Structure formats: structure tokens, C-alpha cells
């Protein structure tokens, strides 16, 4: 104990030490405290510990003064660091002053950058969304869709639906295939009822239960091992379930459907992600479909051996190292082993991730639009950057003195570089904030225009990646060159008024202006060509008359009473004529290769589009009957066929009337030939088509109105429909509308392209405006002198505009071949297309020139009209 006591008192008071530490600068503490302790030891010996401690306190208090609070002054001069906080603060201050001082140019820069960044990022958002399709499945890298080539020669085509057995046989026999799933649209059950709620479900599917384990469509409720306990189980998406049951627990609830069928809800899945190519509302067990199809068959066909029905979308998960080429050959062997006469069939596998952007055969589909839009986004950003670079380098002349002064008082080049970098960054920061606001405001309109449902989800890392890359990229592109240029002035020369020749010639700037206008010309020309093509395909003579015609599909009951329905409709005011057929004339879906004619070669397949029609159909649509006769609605017609020109040509039948032709099981004769008409989008060539007569299949009813009482005609048709099927919604469409819907994606693309091109052109015009303003400003005194010496206003405008016009002309020369090439590529997608005509480029060039002249002349005229007295007096 005494020892402890002693040790404690040997030390100076701890509290005092702590106080000292608080009030003494860190670099002084060591020596001061050392001195104090030494003194304490000395005093301890001299006057005893109690008084020594008092003294210690007294000494410490002496050090509680501002002198000791501040650090020791270092004896060397402070070095300037590139990143010292004082300098950075200074950079921001000068940058801000500069922005405010040159309000006009700052405004032009910020406007251009804001518009460019906002639009560029919106386009990139769209691109990102397109590219994300079907990639969210964990196994998506190893997932493939099974497709088959079928047919021979020009009839050879690709089908994305396959036969049923190949999925399971493949999985069983080939080790490369890990898992398989089949989907098939459900056309059997459409009307679902729960209590008083009845919904006509049009987007439902039959599927193997592997759908939920293979794809990332997990069950939120239900048994993942056995999703469908029996054939009358059904799995709904969340929002579908909500439609029927509200917030009640849907599991175990029963949906009833036509013919007293009922389905018990056995599971719920999350709604299919928006970027999934597979989108359905309900999933039914595929075993139910098989049961319905094969239960009553007597020929022994079932889902294990039916190689006739190409009705199923088949998806595989493969082993990562599987060879696709070998696998497709093996699948073909399996197919041929079971159905030897399908020699024209070969299998192919398309990666799931390609499904959305590439066609079934792997050729470019939507990816072309994605590329086109990516390029436009890039161009818009580049144009915005060019604006900034041009204006800041042009105006750098005015700052050469500032730079020189800074250099003379000791600024290093790296510091000046930093200063200008920060200036650009500040401007960019402002523009970015505004761009976010703009994006936010434009998003609803943009979604409507593009048909997407994009959101600015700030919790999504991909959004940040996109924004980050865009901003860093544009910032780097537009800050480095001006900063380099500005920081490289030679102070002596600059102060004497001689600037480096690089700057005064400004070749680089001219190159940029040319680039900008070349882009504008390309965009204008492309816009013209795209809209011409779209106009062309929509106004091209279709070969049939669809004006004032609407149509709808009849259900069984109505179709059975067609004669009564027809008689009733024809009595109504506003209805001029009715006709019926088996499919929609705007887009005939069905297709068959099951046909034969004299002269068909062995192994040849011709796919033909079969349409059942009545005798009114051909006159109703004013389809031209080239040879032979129309149907007569007599029973004999069931063995009569009418072909289109293409079918006759493709089958190489000379003098077809009276020749025999087999369609499916019906061996009949050709009685007529009609002129070709377009029953598909203009992207496709007209294909062979055949009209046959079978009243039971004619479900599509067409009504031609007189054009005046369309509403009454529709109401009459609806009454007739509801008389037979009160539960089902009456779904009609004017053919003009259905026709326009064929080109919806083209029109959307076209419209978006127009908007983007317009914005790009506006931004470049803005930049040119700024540049012209600057030129006029710099040359104020020169103009004054010229005017005093007798120059006319027009000659001065000419002088000012001449430089810019020259640049625009060069831009036109560069742009024309590029635009021509790009547009020829785009047009190749269409089977029916316009020629790229020379006047388009003349017009585009003329427009670009006009825009340039308009922007430049405003400033030029202002400068030319200025009173020389004023401009010369100002110094």
C-alpha cells in the first residue's frame, strides 16, 4: 500500500495534464509537458509533493493562453498543393464568378447540356430496358428456345412452336438437356367466373409444372414440388388473383368456366416482370390440354407420339458446355425416327436472351432499333459536348490574360488545368441537376410515346451506372480539351496580345462544327426517309378495300344462326353489306404445308395461307378476280378452291382453272385466281394464299357501314352478338385500326426518331447561335471600321455568315453518303420499300443550311446594323 500511495503522489496531477492536452497545440504538447514534468520532479525534491502539485497547477494555468493554442509557425515557406482546400475553394469561387459574369454563354451551355443529358439518358434508359429482356433468370445463359425450320425452297420458314413429344424425349435421351418446359396458348377456356365476377381471359397458357422452377417465376404461394395437384388446378399471377378475389387469400378458391368446368387455385406467382418475353395471366396444367385433345382419339395418338401438332413453345436448360450444333442434329434424329417423312425439318436453338431483340432465325430484329437509338443517344451527347467545347475554347481568348496573370504570380500548369476542370464540373453539376428535373418531367410523356413503363428507380444500381457513365463520359469529353488549351497559354505572348496560332486558326473548332452539322443533316435525311417509308407502306394499294369495314369473331351459338344474323343486320340502317371468313384479312395467321397439286415435286413443301370464305367475301372487299369464278355458296363449293397469284406462281401451275388441288384431306379443283393482296405487314412479301369454302369455320364477320351511321351499325352488331352470347364481351375493330396496329412499333420508332432528331438539331443550332454571337461580339470594332469606310449592311452580314455557311456545306457533303448508306440498310428490312431518292438529301441539306443561316443571321444582322459610333467608342 505505501508503495502504491507513493507512486500516485510522484506523478503530477492528472487532471491538470488533461487540461493542458486540451488547450495546448499538438505540436507544442511534447516539449511543454516535458518541461512541466521535469519542473515537477525538481520541485518535488525541493518543496515536497503537496506544494509541488499546487505549483504544477499554477504552471499549467500559465499555458492556457492563445499563444499556446495555435501551432508553432513552421520556419519554411508553405508549399502550394494541387489539391489544397484553399485553392479548391478558390477554383469554385472563380468558376462561379465566371458563370455569373457571362450569363448569356452560361445559359446557352447549360441549356444545351441539360437537354442533351436529359434526352441522352432517357434514350439510354430505353436501351437498357430493351437489353435487359429475359436476362433476369438465373439460368438465362443456358436457356434456349427450340425452333424448327420447315418447308423447302422459297417456302422454307421458321416456326417457333414445336411438337409436344420432343421436349420430354430430348430431356430423357440427351444428357446435354437438363430441363425442359412446354407452353401452349389456352384457347379452350376463356370465360372465368367467380361469384358475380366474369372475365374474358385472353392471355392464359397451358404449361408444364417445370415453368416455375426452370424460369425465375417462383411461386409465392403453393407447392413448388407439385404446383398442379390435379388437372383442374390453376395458378394465377398476383394481379389476376386480385381481379377476382380482391384481398382474400386466393388459394383453394374455385373459378368456374364454360361447360361446367371449374378450377381450383393451387398457387400464386408474382406478375411476370415487364422485361420478360413470356407474359401470361393464368397458367393451367398442360396435362389437361393433352387430356382434352387425346381422350377421345381412337387412332392411338397422344402427347407422347403426336409429331403432327406444332403447337408448343419449348424451352430447354442446357448443360453449360453443350454443343448447340450437335444437339440440334440429335434432336432432328429423334424427330425423324418418330416421323420419317419430315425430312424438310431441322431444329435450331435460340438463346433465351436473344428472343426479344432478334428474330427467330437469329437475324436482327429489335436490336436494330436499339442500335439506332444508342447511336442517337451518343450523337446527342456528343453534340452537347461539342457545344461546350466550342464555346469555351472560342471564348478562351478573352481569358488568356487571366491565365497569364495567374501563371506570372506562380500558378502551375496543373493548377490551371484543375481550375478549368472544376469550372466545367460546376457547369455540369448545374446541368445535371436540371437534367434530372427535366427527365422526371418528361418521363410520363416519354413512356406514352415509347410504349414503355420506365421509372427512375434510384435504388437500382443500373440506373446509377448509366447516369454515372453518361456524366463522367461527357464531362471528360468536354472538359479536357478546353482545360488543356487554356492552361497552355504562354504568358508573355498572351499579355502582348498574341495568342498561340493554334487558337486563332481554330481548325479544331471548325471540325467540330462540321461534325455537328453532318450529324444534323444525317438525322434530317433519315427522318425524311423513315417517314416517307411509313407513309408508303400505309398508303400502298393493298389489293382490297377496307374502308368503313369493321369485324368481329362470332362464337359457336351465333355462327350457327348466321343466316338469321345476316338477314337481321342487312335490315339495319347504316349497314351496306356483310361477309364472313375464317380469319382476319388484315393478318391471316394460319398456314399449312399439307397440300398437293399436279406437278408438285417430291420433298417439296409450299406453305399456303388457307382462308375459308363465303361468296360475298370477294366482292365485299373488292378483291379482283383475275380468272375463273367465285364461290356460289352451294355444297359443291367445298371441293372448289380459289388461289392467289403468288400461289399459282409458286406451284408453277399453268392455266390453273380446272386443275386439281389438295388442301388437307379435300381433293378438289381450282375454280378461280385472285390478284395478289396484302394480308400481312409490308415487311413481308405476299405469300401464297388459298380460299376454300367451309361455313362451319367462318367465324369472322365483316360489316361494311355506309360511312354515315357507323355508330348505329356497331350497336346493331352488338345487339346481335349479345343475343347469343350475353356473357362475352363484344370485341370489334375497324380494319383501318387493325391495319394501323400492324405498324404500331414502326410508327413509335419513327415518332421517337423524329423527336430525338429534332432535339439533336436544336442543340446544335443552339451551339452555333452561341458561336455566332461570340464572333459578332469579337468583331464589333472591325464591323464598325468597315461601316465607317462604307461597307453596306448586306456585305457585312455576308462576311459574318460566310464562314459558317462554308462549314455547313462541307457537313452536307460528308453526311450525304453516310445517311444514304444507313438508310439503305434500314430499308432492307421491308419487302416493299421506297427508293432512296436524291432530293431527300438536297432537302435535308437545304434545311440544315436554313437552320444555320437563321441562327447565324440573327446575330450578324444585329452586328451589322449597329451604329459604328457606338461600337468604335466602346473600348
Amino acid at each position, binding site marked *: 500500500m505505501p508503495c502504491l500511495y507513493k507512486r500516485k503522489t510522484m506523478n503530477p496531477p492528472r487532471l491538470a495534464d488533461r487540461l493542458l492536452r486540451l488547450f495546448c497545440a499538438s505540436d507544442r504538447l511534447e516539449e511543454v509537458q516535458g518541461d512541466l514534468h521535469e519542473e515537477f520532479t525538481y520541485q518535488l525534491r525541493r518543496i515536497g509533493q503537496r506544494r509541488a502539485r499546487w505549483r504544477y497547477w499554477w504552471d499549467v494555468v500559465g499555458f492556457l493562453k492563445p*499563444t499556446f493554442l495555435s501551432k508553432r509557425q513552421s520556419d519554411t515557406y508553405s508549399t502550394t498543393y494541387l489539391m489544397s482546400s484553399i485553392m479548391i475553394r478558390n477554383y469554385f469561387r472563380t468558376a462561379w464568378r465566371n458563370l455569373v459574369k457571362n450569363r448569356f454563354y452560361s445559359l446557352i451551355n447549360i441549356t444545351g447540356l441539360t437537354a442533351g443529358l436529359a434526352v441522352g439518358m432517357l434514350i439510354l434508359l430505353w436501351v437498357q430496358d430493351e437489353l435487359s429482356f429475359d436476362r433476369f433468370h438465373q439460368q438465362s445463359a443456358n436457356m434456349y428456345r427450340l425452333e424448327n425450320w420447315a418447308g423447302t425452297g422459297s417456302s422454307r420458314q421458321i416456326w417457333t412452336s414445336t411438337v409436344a413429344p420432343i421436349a420430354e424425349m430430348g430431356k430423357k435421351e440427351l444428357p446435354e438437356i437438363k430441363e425442359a418446359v412446354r407452353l401452349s396458348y389456352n384457347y379452350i377456356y376463356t370465360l372465368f367466373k367467380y361469384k358475380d365476377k366474369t372475365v374474358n381471359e385472353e392471355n392464359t397458357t397451358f404449361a408444364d409444372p417445370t415453368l416455375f422452377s426452370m424460369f425465375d417465376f417462383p411461386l409465392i404461394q403453393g407447392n413448388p414440388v407439385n404446383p398442379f395437384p390435379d388437372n383442374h388446378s390453376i395458378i394465377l399471377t398476383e394481379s389476376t388473383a386480385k381481379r377476382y378475389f380482391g384481398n382474400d387469400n386466393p388459394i383453394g378458391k374455385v373459378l368456374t368456366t364454360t361447360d361446367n368446368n371449374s378450377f381450383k387455385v393451387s398457387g400464386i406467382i408474382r406478375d411476370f416482370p415487364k422485361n420478360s418475353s413470356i407474359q401470361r395471366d393464368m397458367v393451367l396444367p398442360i396435362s389437361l390440354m393433352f387430356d382434352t385433345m387425346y381422350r377421345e382419339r381412337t387412332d392411338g395418338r397422344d402427347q407422347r407420339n403426336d409429331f403432327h401438332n406444332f403447337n408448343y413453345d419449348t424451352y430447354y436448360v442446357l448443360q453449360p458446355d453443350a454443343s448447340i450444333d450437335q444437339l440440334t442434329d440429335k434432336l432432328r434424329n429423334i424427330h425423324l425416327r418418330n416421323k420419317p417423312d419430315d425430312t424438310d425439318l431441322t431444329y435450331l436453338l435460340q438463346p433465351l436472351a436473344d428472343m426479344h431483340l432478334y428474330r427467330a432465325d437469329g437475324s436482327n430484329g429489335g436490336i436494330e432499333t436499339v442500335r439506332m437509338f444508342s447511336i442517337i443517344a451518343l450523337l446527342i451527347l456528343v453534340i452537347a459536348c461539342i457545344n461546350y467545347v466550342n464555346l469555351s475554347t472560342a471564348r478562351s481568348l478573352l481569358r488568356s490574360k487571366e491565365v497569364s496573370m495567374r501563371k506570372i504570380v506562380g500558378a502551375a500548369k496543373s493548377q490551371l488545368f484543375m481550375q478549368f476542370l472544376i469550372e466545367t464540373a460546376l457547369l455540369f453539376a448545374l446541368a445535371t441537376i436540371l437534367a434530372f428535373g427535366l427527365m422526371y418531367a418528361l418521363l410520363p410523356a416519354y413512356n406514352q410515346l415509347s410504349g414503355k413503363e420506365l421509372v427512375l428507380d434510384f435504388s437500382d444500381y443500373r440506373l446509377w451506372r448509366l447516369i454515372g457513365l453518361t456524366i463522367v463520359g461527357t464531362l471528360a469529353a468536354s472538359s479536357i480539351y478546353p482545360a488543356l488549351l487554356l492552361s497552355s497559354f504562354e504568358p508573355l505572348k498572351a499579355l502582348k496580345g498574341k495568342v498561340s496560332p493554334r487558337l486563332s486558326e481554330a481548325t479544331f473548332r471548325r471540325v467540330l462544327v462540321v461534325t455537328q452539322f453532318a450529324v444534323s443533316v444525317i438525322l434530317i435525311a433519315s427522318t425524311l426517309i423513315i417517314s416517307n417509308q411509313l407513309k408508303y407502306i400505309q398508303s400502298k394499294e393493298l389489293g382490297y378495300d377496307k374502308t368503313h369495314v369493321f369485324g368481329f369473331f362470332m362464337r359457336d351459338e351465333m355462327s350457327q344462326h348466321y343466316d338469321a344474323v345476316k338477314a337481321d343486320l342487312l335490315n339495319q340502317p347504316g349497314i351496306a353489306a356483310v361477309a364472313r371468313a375464317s380469319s382476319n384479312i388484315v393478318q391471316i395467321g394460319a398456314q399449312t404445308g399439307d397440300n398437293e397439286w399436279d406437278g408438285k415435286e417430291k420433298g417439296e413443301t409450299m406453305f399456303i395461307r388457307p382462308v375459308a370464305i363465303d361468296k360475298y367475301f370477294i366482292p365485299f372487299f373488292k378483291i379482283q378476280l383475275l380468272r375463273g369464278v367465285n364461290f356460289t355458296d352451294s355444297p359443291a363449293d367445298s371441293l372448289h378452291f380459289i388461289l392467289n397469284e403468288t400461289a399459282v406462281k409458286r406451284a408453277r401451275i399453268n392455266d390453273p382453272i380446272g386443275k386439281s388441288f389438295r388442301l388437307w384431306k379435300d381433293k378438289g379443283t381450282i375454280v378461280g385466281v385472285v390478284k395478289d393482296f396484302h394480308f400481312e405487314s409490308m415487311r413481308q412479301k405476299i405469300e401464297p394464299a388459298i380460299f376454300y369454302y367451309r361455313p362451319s369455320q367462318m367465324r369472322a364477320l365483316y360489316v361494311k357501314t355506309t360511312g354515315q351511321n357507323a355508330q348505329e351499325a356497331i350497336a346493331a352488331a352488338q345487339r346481335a352478338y349479345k343475343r347469343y352470347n350475353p356473357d362475352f364481351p363484344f370485341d370489334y375493330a375497324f380494319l383501318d385500326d387493325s391495319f394501323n396496329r400492324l405498324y404500331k412499333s414502326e410508327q413509335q420508332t419513327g415518332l421517337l426518331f423524329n423527336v430525338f432528331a429534332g432535339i439533336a438539331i436544336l442543340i446544335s443550332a443552339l451551339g452555333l447561335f452561341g458561336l455566332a454571337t461570340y464572333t459578332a461580339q469579337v468583331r464589333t470594332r472591325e464591323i464598325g471600321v468597315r461601316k465607317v469606310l462604307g461597307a453596306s449592311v448586306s456585305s457585312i452580314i455576308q462576311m459574318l455568315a460566310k464562314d459558317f455557311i462554308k462549314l455547313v456545306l462541307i457537313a452536307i457533303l460528308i453526311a450525304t453518303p453516310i445517311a444514304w448508306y444507313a438508310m439503305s440498310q434500314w430499308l432492307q428490312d421491308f419487302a416493299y420499300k421506297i427508293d432512296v431518292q436524291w432530293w431527300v438529301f438536297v432537302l435535308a441539306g437545304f434545311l440544315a443550311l436554313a437552320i444555320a443561316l437563321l441562327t447565324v443571321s440573327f446575330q450578324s444582322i444585329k452586328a451589322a446594323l449597329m451604329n459604328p459610333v457606338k461600337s468604335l467608342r466602346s473600348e
Partner: protein
Amino acid sequence: MKRSYLGEFEEIVLLTVAVMEGQAYGVAITHEIIEQTGRAVRLNQIHAALDRLEDKGMVKSEMGEPTAERGGRRKRLFTVTAYGRRTLQEIQEVRVSFWDRLLSPLKPATSL
């Protein structure tokens, strides 16, 4: 340029540093001055004075060795710079010249 002003206390401190020849640090200087002048000098005053002298460029300092009684802390050792030495000499010369002039007139005065 005019020479910096040196206060009386600063002069004493500077002289002490000069006398101690490289062994001058806070506590030692304090004790030396107390011993030589009998004044009640406090440690913080010495530190402040040394700080000012260093600012004026009359002393320079470096850190010395740590000792046990200081709790392992180093001392800051001061030495007089050439400038400081010259300042001391000049002060001395001014004084001597005054004293020289004072000594002779004083004599008659004492004889009065």
C-alpha cells in the same frame, strides 16, 4: 531595414540561451534566469518568449533526447542564430557607447 525590437525580458532569455551553449531548453532556462536574476519567472513566460524569438529569427530550435524525468518526452533545444548573436552584440555596443559617454560626465557630478 530596421532591426526588430527586442524587449528586456527577451534580451535576458536570448542571453541565457547564448550562455547555455546548446543546452538551453524551457526548464533549464527558467532555472538559470531565476538563479542569475532572482526574478520570479514562470515557465509559460519563457516558452512564449522563446516562441517570439524564434519568430524573429534570433534563435533556432531542434528536438533533443528524451529523458526519464520528463516522462520520456523530448526537450526542445534552442541555439542562438547568427542574427540573434549580432543583435545582442549591437545592443551591447549601443550600451557600451552610452556608458562610455556617461562615465566621464559622471565624474564631475560625483565631485559635486
